[in-house]
């Protein structure tokens, strides 16, 4: 049996899955001040009458990190940058930082040295600020870790007991400001997250649940709880990821679907392209910071069942704000929920109150209440369809740097519109009809998120960079580098090497059994020509275990 628990914004949903059957579901309201507690309440309700020895796996999806950052409850961090030549660091919206001399170039070559006294000076400054967490990030330090290592070492010895995070461990991909932001957030959340993870482990032990515990990440993959403390920021936005994985679990494989999660005030949209959830091109935006965190591309549209309906000078507007609950549910209305009730498209709320809500709209528009309700529903559908089309357009317009990428990218359209969330059932068929797609509201739509968490498999990424002229390779995330001797290494050789390194990384993270699922998602090779002959090759390989479902899950 598998357990999936998604601690969402308003409710915490939980399921027990056995093979391909949903055995039990549970819901408790989310208590933002005590996420652990509401998670445990859901767990207790779920396992009542169930033999805990039969539980094979527990997966949690939590808003912990999201909330911490949104509420500013993170720990203070000193950001130390080694930017080298290029952009003025002030042009990055990274907040206050200490800038060190020293520079590495794109080839990983040292082009300016670190200055030790300056680092010691930085340490005193950090000490004076009373900060005990430091993020050290250098431009191109993923190609040569030495500056970050050296600066980190000096800072650690000058600041005993402090936590030092190094940029190259966060991501091997290009983009210094994103790496800085991600490292900063890692340092700011690691301790509190570790405490949470410890609490979870203890609470489960008390309940005699000995199954391995995993946490869901923003890319729809799971990671063992005890290993996730290394990379807490990756657990951000696991809620939408859980829903998308749930849709994957509840629909046919290999299809192109739009996932529509209609809530009270927002509608979350996501795309599954030929069975693969679309990832945001460069990484997630967390508050005001752009990061390297791999996350599904989720678009939040400010419209939902509780959005306020207003009429201004004869023109109708739905949202973006909320003005209390729908009138038919005892609020102040009018809202789309009232409109759906009037049209008989849902049974939620009181019919008389809904009619009254639409009457107020009708008067201002000079029509009857049914017509007014229809206009409200049309406005909601219009907005969602517009945003879905925009998402497809943005995907088509993602930049490409090779001829074949530009020549082979064709426009695609949705086969299905899959609804999850409370507001979905009546609206999804309307959205689907407009997009010329099939409407699907899975049987377990309300707990799709918890199912997604329960049956998601691990994901893993590894970036291997090889420079055969220098005779070096490195995997920044692992902090490893070494020698290569073959100057004429082929992409095939590099991919084989990446596969081996990924298997080692998977073993270290306790997810070995999935290493064979790894795919090469990016591979490039460049001959370096100096003069008129080949001096060496630059090879980059990105290997990933992509988001997917456990083999035990036969789809419903």
């Amino acid at each position, binding site marked *: 049996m598998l357990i999936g628990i998604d601690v969402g914004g308003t409710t915490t949903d939980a399921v027990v899955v056995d093979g391909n059957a949903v055995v039990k579901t549970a819901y408790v309201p989310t208590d933002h001040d005590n996420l652990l507690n509401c998670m445990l309440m859901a767990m207790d309700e779920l396992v009542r009458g169930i033999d805990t020895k039969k539980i094979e796996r527990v997966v949690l999806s939590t808003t912990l990190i999201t909330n911490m950052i949104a509420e500013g409850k993170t720990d203070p961090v000193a950001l130390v940058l080694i930017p080298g030549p290029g952009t003025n660091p002030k*042009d990055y919206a990274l907040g206050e930082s200490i800038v060190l001399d020293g520079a590495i170039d794109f*080839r990983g070559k040292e082009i300016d040295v670190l200055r030790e006294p300056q680092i010691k000076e930085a340490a005193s400054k950090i000490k004076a600020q009373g900060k005990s967490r430091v993020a050290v990030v250098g431009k191109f330090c993923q190609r040569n870790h030495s500056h970050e290592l050296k600066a980190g070492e000096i800072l650690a010895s000058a600041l005993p007991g402090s936590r030092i995070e190094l940029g190259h461990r966060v991501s091997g991909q290009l*983009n210094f*400001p994103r790496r800085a932001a991600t490292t900063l957030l890692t340092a700011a959340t690691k301790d509190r997250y570790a405490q949470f993870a410890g609490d979870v482990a203890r609470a489960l032990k008390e309940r005699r649940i000995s199954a391995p515990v995993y946490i869901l990440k923003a890319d729809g993959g799971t990671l063992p709880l005890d290993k996730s403390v290394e990379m807490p920021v990756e657990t951000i936005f696991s809620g939408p990821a859980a829903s998308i994985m749930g849709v994957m679990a509840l629909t046919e494989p290999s299809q192109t679907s739009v996932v529509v999660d209609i809530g009270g005030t927002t509608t979350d949209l996501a795309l599954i392209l030929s069975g693969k959830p679309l990832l945001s091109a460069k990484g997630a935006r967390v508050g005001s910071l752009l990061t390297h965190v791999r996350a599904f591309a989720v678009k939040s549209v400010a419209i939902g069942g509780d959005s306020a309906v207003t009429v201004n000078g004869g023109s109708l507007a739905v949202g973006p704000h909320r003005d209390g609950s729908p009138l038919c549910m005892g609020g102040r209305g009018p809202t789309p929920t009232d409109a759906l009730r009037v049209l008989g498209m849902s049974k939620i709320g009181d019919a008389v109150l809904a009619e009254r809500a639409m009457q107020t709209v009708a008067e201002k528009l000079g029509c009857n209440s049914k017509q007014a309700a229809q206009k409200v529903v049309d406005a909601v559908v219009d907005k969602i369809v517009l945003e879905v089309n925009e998402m497809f357009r943005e995907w088509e*317009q993602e930049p490409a*740097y090779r001829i074949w990428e530009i020549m082979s990218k064709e426009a695609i359209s949705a086969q299905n519109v899959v609804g999850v969330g409370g507001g979905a059932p009546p609206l999804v068929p309307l959205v689907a009809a407009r997009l010329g797609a099939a409407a699907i509201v899975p049987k377990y739509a309300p707990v799709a998120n918890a199912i997604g968490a329960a049956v998601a498999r691990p994901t893993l990424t590894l970036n291997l960079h090889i420079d055969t002229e220098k005779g070096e390779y490195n995997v920044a995330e692992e902090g490893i580098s070494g020698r290569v001797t073959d100057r004429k290494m082929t992409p095939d050789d590099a991919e084989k090497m990446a596969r081996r390194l990924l298997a080692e990384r998977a073993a270290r993270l306790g997810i070995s059994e999935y290493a064979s699922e790894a795919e090469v998602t990016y591979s490039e090779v460049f001959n370096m020509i100096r003069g008129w002959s080949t001096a060496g090759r630059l090879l980059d390989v990105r290997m990933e275990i992509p988001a997917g479902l456990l083999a035990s899950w036969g789809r419903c």
Partner: protein
Amino acid sequence: MSSKNKSGKTGLIFFPAFDWAISPTHPEREERLLYTRDQIFEEGLMDLPSIEEYKPRLAEKKDIARAHFCVPDVESQVTEAHLIAAGSTLTLADALEKGEIRNGFALVRPPGHHSMRVVHGNRGFCNINNMAIMVEYLRTKYGHKKIAVIDTDVHHGDGTQEIFWHDPDVLCISFHQDGHTLYPGSGFVNEMGGPQALARTLNIPLPPGTTDEGIHYVLDNLIMPVLDEFKPDLILNSAGQDNHYTDPLANMRVSANGYARLNEKLAPDLCVLEGGYAVETALPYVNTGIIQAMAGLDYSHVREPDFVPGRFVQSEEMKREIAHTVTQVQKIWEQRDELVEEALEGLGDFYRRKRRIFYDTDMINENQEEVVRLCPDCAGYMTINTSAQRGYGILNSAFCVTIPRGACSSCRDDAKEEYAEHLDDRRIGYVLMQDKDKDKFKFYNNMTRTEKGY
């Protein structure tokens, strides 16, 4: 007016064509923009709120035919890479005209500024002229009249110059390393444009070793004042980067900072990358600096690893030489109206010139005879008789006719007659018609007696 005062983003298209090369070890190879990619991606420039990245599109055949006579047709002369590079400039032109961006930079390859009006093959690493294609598009689609093209590549922008040679509304200014010392061996002060457009082509040959100081002297004392007087709708920069002090194919001493400052001063509406072959030591820094300058960001932190301010100093003699050239060109510009008047006085109804053009990359020798009608009512139609021999291979010949924008009815009729007269003339391979007024383009094959058009 130039849009330099508009607020908004800087549009950027980065198309490094990582799967295209002239040959594996050629300077114009896959690796050329690799380190530039690394640098600008690592800088996170595309994420900055002042920069918007666009995806390139493919130019249409018609877009190419508007600027070139491709012999025998467009598809034989261009590959997908060329269509994407040219299309990138059009995407940015559209974004600029729609007001989405305040300026834009097509950081794309393959380059184009050595491609002339007639295209038989690759010249100076260029098959089609991205800049000229963009200029013709901007004029046809958006009705711009006056455009200034400033060629800041180290090589003379001979292709662009040739395409707009007779056009008084397109001001072509090129500064470059002296043609006595560098390909393509042209771009001297006395190359000033056709009789109707004299001094609308300005060339500033500079001595090898010219530094930031030298090119900024040219900008401050010549180019900026000329632009102020010409008052173009748009300023465009053919932004080659091979004036850099590390470029392996040239001998100048300009720095990344010098290039960034140039773009800040010039404030071009659109930039198109041309050459620049110091792939590690110059391009990453120069491109970063240009993007920052265009986006109004601080570029003072961009510095080549081996650069120290004051590293390069011009000799007094070199300064005098540059000042002398600038004075000569200033005079040409000041006398522009008299020059045209005088030139036209001595000519009859037609202006003719014969030329030989060598295509270094493809080893093609071309012979041309160009005839322009000096029409009092319009720009006058033009014909070009061209034949080209590739090595000892086949001889390709064509007769080309251009009807200018706003052609008078007499020029239109005569041009059509010229076209018709040459059809089925077995001494000529192809007959091409470029009707810029109606934006229609025809290609006739005299051997198969078939016509096609865009």
